[in-house]
Structures are given as C-alpha cells and as structure tokens.
C-alpha cells in the first residue's frame, strides 16, 4: 500500500509544479511533458530547471527539462562516467567533449539512433544536415547511425596574427607581407629596441599556448595541425590522412624555427610562460607579435594603453609563405564534439527529437544565443538585439548568458550575430579582413573509429604523440640537432606503429567521408 502511495504523491507534487500556460505556436506537445536531462558541462555548468532560460523553454515548447546532474560536482567527464555506470539513465544526456562517448555507447546500445526520427519529425535538422553535409558526416558513427546532435558554431574566424603597430611605426617598418619581411620585422624588434628602454629585452614572437609556435612552420609551406587543436592530423589533397610532424617538409621548417629561437626571435620562455603570457609581455612593453583569438587579444588595446603610452596592437593578414601563398590552418570549426543525445530508456523519442529540432529553428536559436526575450534581448526589425543594459554591463555578455542558463553546450546552432554584437571594433576589423581574405584551409573533423581501429589507435598513438612533442621541443630549443636526429626520429616512428595508426584512421576516414 505504502509503496504505491509515495510515487502517486510525487506525481501529484510534480504535476502541481507544472502550471497551465498559454499555448504558443512553438509548442511540441499539448499536454505538458517533463523530461529528465543529465547535463554537466565544462566542469561547472549544469542544467537547472529554475533558471530563466529553462522556464522560457518550457513556456515556448510545453516541455519541461529537469536537470539530474550534481550541482556541486566539478568534473564533467567524471559525472558522465558515473551516470553511465549507475545504469539509471535520464531521458537526455548532454555536455561538452562527449562525441566519442556518444558514438561508443550509442553503438553499445545506450543511446537511440536518430536518423529515422530526424527524417520524420525534424524539418529544421534535416534542412541543416542537407546544407551542411560535412557536419552530418563528422557525427555519423561507424555503423552509419547518428547518435547525437552537435553544437554547431557559426562564423569563420578563430585566431589571427597580431602585431605591435606602434613598434612598426617607430622603426619605420611596414606590416610584413611575406615570410622574409616578417623575419626582418622580428629581427628589428629584437635588435633595434622599439620599447626604447636601452635594453635588448624585447620578445618578438610569443604565445600563451606553447604549441602555437609550431604554426610558424606554415610560413615555410608546411602544415602544423589539421584542426583548431594543436598537433592534429590533417587530410591531404588526395584524401589521405597525414600527420604534419612526420612530413619531410617539417624537417626544414623546424630547422628554421630552431634558428629563429636561437636568434631570440621566439620567446625564450615560450614553454613555461603559458596562460598569462599576453598580460605579462604586453604590460611590460616587451611582446611584439602573437597568434591568438580576435576578441580577447583586441581587448588589450583598451587595458594596456593606459600603462604603455601609444600601445597599438593590430591584426595583420597572414604573411605569404615561401611559395608566395597566404594561408591559415586555424578557423572556427563547423562542429564541436559537444551536444546531446537521447537515451535508450527515453519513452518520448518523438517529442525529444522535436525538442532537438527546436534549437535549429529561429525561435530556439534566439533563445539559446540571446537568452530570454524582454530580459536580455529585444526584437528590432525582426532581429534579436541585446539590451543596452546587457551590453554595458561590466560582466562579459557570455557570462551573463551562462548565468541565466543559455549557451550551454547542448546540440544547437550558434548565431554569429550573438558574438558580433559585443565584439569590440578592433577585433571586428580583423575578423572582417580574415573573413574576406578567406585564407582558411579545410579542417579535419576527426574520424569515428570502429572498436578494432580504436584499439590500434589507443595502443600506439599516445606514445607517438608524446615522442613527437618531445622531439619537436628539443629541436626548437636546440638541445637536439634536426639534421642529426631526423632519420632516427623517422625510424622510431615507423617502429612504434605510426603506419598502423594512419591506416586505421584512413579506413575510418574512407568509410565516413567517402573514398576519393
């Protein structure tokens, strides 16, 4: 008797929290429906049904999502594993960096395949995948199914080259247009004391992520990475998977970087300075050039010019490489490994796929990108516009949106306009230049491997990657000679399963993206 009463009471309690509301055209279901969601993202954000964004979602769709992830936990990956291990799955699971997990556990039967549901019930998703086939291929599992809906960023640009314009002016130099001019400029930064303190303490090139220094090999016509992550594989023009650090071209390029490093053109402390490199070197009036994100780097013009008179940082077009070509490996991905999936125990797949679809519709994108209408944004001429109070707030706009529960890494389509409205003018200038220049080379979105392929990759790749980064760093620092160790390096790669990793990935790539 008691056993039946408790759930009944709970049900009435739950029903009591669901108020009857006015019907919206975006309603997914006529009867209010509650679904459970586990969403723990970036080690700190969880889905909270009491936040304005969740309430607005309920008002718009008549679907209430109730969060089940712990609000006090600080490791999203761990929370995901725990939730999976308990075997008690909620209706929806979401978060960042879960692509491989969604695919792996999807094939093991924890998540529902979505292909049919998308075809039948999700017009927006279907249209999106039709116009973005590369995204569809990137998320398709080896068994041909789609198990999750990804977070799709918008906009083209991620990082760019930044240089001290006031130093250039002082030394009577122009913005470098080629690799040779770039070398001259960095050399002058080092030798001619642009900060005027009488000491040779200028740091011509530096970066807050040490691995970004390898991007300089682009100027010697070589690849440094295949995606916005560092040291990633890339796909050549013939559809073959390669690793930049194993290419013959890399030998000459890294020898040149070692020369730059020895001449003091690259930050001597690049491997240990890390996160606060820009703050340190710009405020000490020592840093000359860096490769970094637009919005945050442009911001130094405002914060540093108070302490360093005349400080002017501008973005420049990528100088042409030794073959006279301007190009850039880093752009904004069309897809992130974040998103959400519906579990095998979800009893309302149709409503759930409609919810996933909602975030690819205009109304859903506005909600996720701009927050709640009337609270954070207003409609102007049919377009969402952030309120003045939001734009003028001392807190960055994205932080304000996180606080109301928007922008969480669920499966949604970003609207670049959201970012544009609060990007400062100096950054916008650079972004527009890079977008117009369109110097980007295609990105590699990774492959979804079968169990056997994954086993080979897992067995060899971590060691290989460690070895590659070890050698590259030794070459740049000059502790090992490129010429003396290159053959040994290639032999060791060969002996440690490098070819096996490449061919496992190639098989997966051909299956997923089609053989060329």
């Amino acid at each position: 008797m008691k056993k039946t009463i408790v759930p009944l009471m709970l049900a009435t309690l739950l029903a009591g929290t669901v108020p009857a509301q006015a019907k919206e055209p975006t309603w997914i279901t006529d009867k209010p429906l509650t679904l459970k969601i586990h969403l723990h993202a970036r080690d700190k954000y969880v889905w909270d049904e009491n936040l304005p964004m969740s309430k607005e979602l309920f008002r718009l769709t008549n679907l209430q999502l109730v969060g089940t992830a712990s609000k006090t936990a600080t490791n999203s990956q761990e929370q995901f594993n725990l939730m999976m291990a308990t075997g008690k799955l909620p209706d929806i699971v979401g978060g960042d960096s879960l692509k491989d997990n969604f695919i792996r556990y999807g094939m093991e039967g924890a998540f529902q395949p979505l292909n049919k549901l998308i075809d039948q019930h999700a017009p927006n998703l279907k249209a999106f995948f039709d116009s973005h086939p590369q995204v569809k291929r990137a998320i398709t599992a080896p068994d041909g199914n789609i198990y999750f809906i990804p977070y799709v960023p918008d906009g083209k640009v991620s990082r760019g080259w930044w240089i001290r314009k006031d130093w250039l002016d002082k030394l009577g130099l122009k913005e470098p247009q080629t690799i040779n001019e770039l070398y001259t400029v960095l050399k002058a930064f080092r030798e001619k004391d642009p900060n005027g303190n009488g000491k040779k303490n200028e740091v011509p090139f530096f970066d807050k992520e040490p691995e970004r220094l390898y991007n300089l090999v682009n100027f010697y016509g070589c690849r440094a990475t295949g995606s916005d992550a560092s040291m990633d594989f890339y796909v050549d023009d013939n559809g073959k998977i390669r690793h930049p650090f194993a290419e013959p071209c890399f030998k000459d390029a890294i020898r040149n970087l070692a020369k730059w490093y020895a001449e003091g053109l690259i930050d001597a402390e690049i491997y240990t300075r890390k996160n606060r490199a820009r703050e340190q070197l710009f405020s000490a009036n020592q840093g000359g050039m860096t490769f970094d994100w637009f919005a945050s780097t442009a911001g130094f013009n405002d914060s540093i010019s108070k302490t360093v008179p005349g400080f002017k940082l501008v973005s420049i077009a990528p100088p042409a490489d030794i073959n006279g070509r301007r190009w850039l490996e880093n752009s904004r991905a069309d897809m992130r490994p974040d998103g959400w999936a519906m579990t095998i125990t979800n009893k309302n797949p149709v409503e759930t796929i409609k919810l996933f679809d909602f975030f690819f519709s205009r109304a859903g994108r506005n909600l996720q990108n701009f927050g709640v209408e009337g609270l954070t944004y207003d409609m102007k001429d049919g377009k969402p516009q952030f309120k003045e109070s939001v734009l003028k707030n001392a807190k960055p706009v994205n932080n304000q949106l996180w606080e109301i529960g928007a922008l969480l890494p669920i499966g949604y389509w970003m609207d670049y306009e959201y970012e544009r409205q609060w990007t400062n003018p100096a950054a916008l200038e650079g972004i527009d230049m890079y977008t117009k220049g369109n110097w980007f080379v295609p990105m590699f979105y990774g492959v979804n491997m079968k169990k056997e392929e994954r086993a080979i990759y897992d067995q060899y790749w971590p060691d290989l990657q460690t070895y590659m980064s070890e050698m590259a760093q030794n070459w740049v620092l000059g502790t090992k000679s490129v010429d003396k160790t290159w053959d040994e390096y290639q032999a060791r790669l060969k002996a440690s399963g490098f070819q096996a990793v490449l061919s496992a990935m190639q098989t997966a790539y051909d299956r997923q993206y089609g053989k060329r």
Partner: protein
Amino acid sequence: MADIQTSVREPLGTRLRQGWQAALKDLRRDWLLYAMLAPTLIWFLVFLYMPLDGLQLAFKQYSAWKGIDGSPWVGFAHFVTLFQSEQFLRAVGNTLIISAYSIVLAFPVPILLALMINEVQSQRYRKAVQTIVYLPHFISVVIVAGIVVAFLSPTTGVVNNALEFLGLDRIYFLTRPEWFRSIFIGSNIWKEAGFDSIVFLAAIMSINPALYESAQVDGASRWQMMTRITLPCIVPTIAVLLVIRLGRVLEVGFEYIILLYQPSTFETADVISTYIYRQGLQGARYDLATAAGVFNAVVALVLVLVANRLSRRITRTGVF
C-alpha cells in the same frame, strides 16, 4: 589443568558458543574502545577494501555503460600494452631513479634538521627556526611550482641573474632533462624537510634524560652525546619511517611533476603516475590506468616486504 582438559574435549558447537560469549563479554566491557575504533575500520572498509573490487578493471575492456561486471574480460592485454610501450618502461625507470635519489638525498635531511634543532639552546631562536622550516609544507604545490618557474626563468629569474653575475651562461633549466631531478628533489627538500623533522624531534624528546645526565657526569661532549645517545635511540623510528617510505617508492608527487615537466624533459621527468595521468585519465582509458596501478601496487608490496624483513634483521624493529 583438569578444567582446560575438559573444555578442549567439548564439542565444536559449545566451544564456538563459549568463544562468542567471551567476545560479547569483552565487547560489553570495552565497548567505548571499540566504538572509537569503528570509524577507522569503516573508513578502511569503505575506501580501501571495497574499491578492491574495481581492480578487475585491469583485466577487462571497460565500458561505463556495461559496468565493471558487464565489461568483457581481456586477460593480460593491458599489461602487454604497457610493457610494450617504451615510454612506460622509461617511466618505471624514472620513477625508481627519482625515488632512489629522494631516499638517498632527501630522507636524511629531516633527521639532520631534527638533530640540529635539538641542539639549539635558545628557546626563542629554536621556535623561530622551527616555524620557518615548517612553513613551506603548507604552501600548495601549485604555488611552489610557480615560485620555481619564476626563480629559474632564463630572462628574469634570480638564479640566472646570479649565474650571469658570476660570468656564466644563462640556462633554461626547466627544459633541460639533466636538471629536472635536481630541481624536483631540491625543491621538495625545501618544502618538506622541516615538517618531516617533527617525527624525529618527537622521538628525540622521548629519550630518557637520565641517559644524558649520566653521560654528562662521565664527561661526554655534546658531539659524543649526539652520536652515542640521540642517534641510536631514534634508529627504530628511522627504520620504521624508511620502510614506509620504501612502500611509497613508486608514488612520486605527481601534481608537482605535471606542473614542472615539459615534453623536452620527459626523458627524465616522466614517471608512472604522470604516464597514467596522460594515458588513462586524459584519454579516459580507465582499464589501462588500472592495470598500471595494479603493477604499481604489486611492486610496492614486494618492496615493503623486503624492506621490512631487512629492517627486522638489522634493527630488530619493523612495521609488522
């Protein structure tokens, strides 16, 4: 005598019942003591014995969805992977070398420190010294790593400024494999020696003062008292701590290494725990990481057993 004879001949059931009753009686009498023991026992059960079940992961292809019990067995496959990896073997070697150096170089320091502190006559001075040497222990390793990076910076670091002043070349210490062990062990000594000396100081305090008094009457010098009385009296403490230390020979402070190492210093800096961290946790390969952990535990157990036997033979004291 006759009583015992009869009780031995009692049937098993009776004897069990008697034993049980004796235990109950014991429990009733000393229940307070047992109650105080309980939290520790529970802690051991929950945090050390129950997780033992998870060790089977080392022999399984782990899937969080299938769970520990549902994941398929793979035998020794993970161990084969580990021992085929040159980097794992290198990590094992590095761990042993760093540990051996730490034991040889860092283990005696707190003992020396305790002896020296013990000889200080002025109470005030002694308190001040103790506070100063204990302090670094309470600084987080993250801060210590930051201090080390700043001190050793090739452009602005104190150490390099001193080198240049002496007419020597500047060195980018943290990227040089040959410097890593010295930096790691040296800064560890600075951080922990003071705090570790507390145990030895306590052992010195518990030495019977009568020994010193009679030695003084016999005209012994302070040096003689230290080498003939103080040191021999704390040898058992030293032995026990050394055995415990040997048991942790494969546990090298992993957060601290992560904060200080670089790909270019992996050659000397990469230890088992950092290897597990990179392969197991960053790559979410819990099964492989567990296998490495099991290997770690087995080696540690063997070392403790050997060290304990040696200690019993040489000093007649041991942990067990």
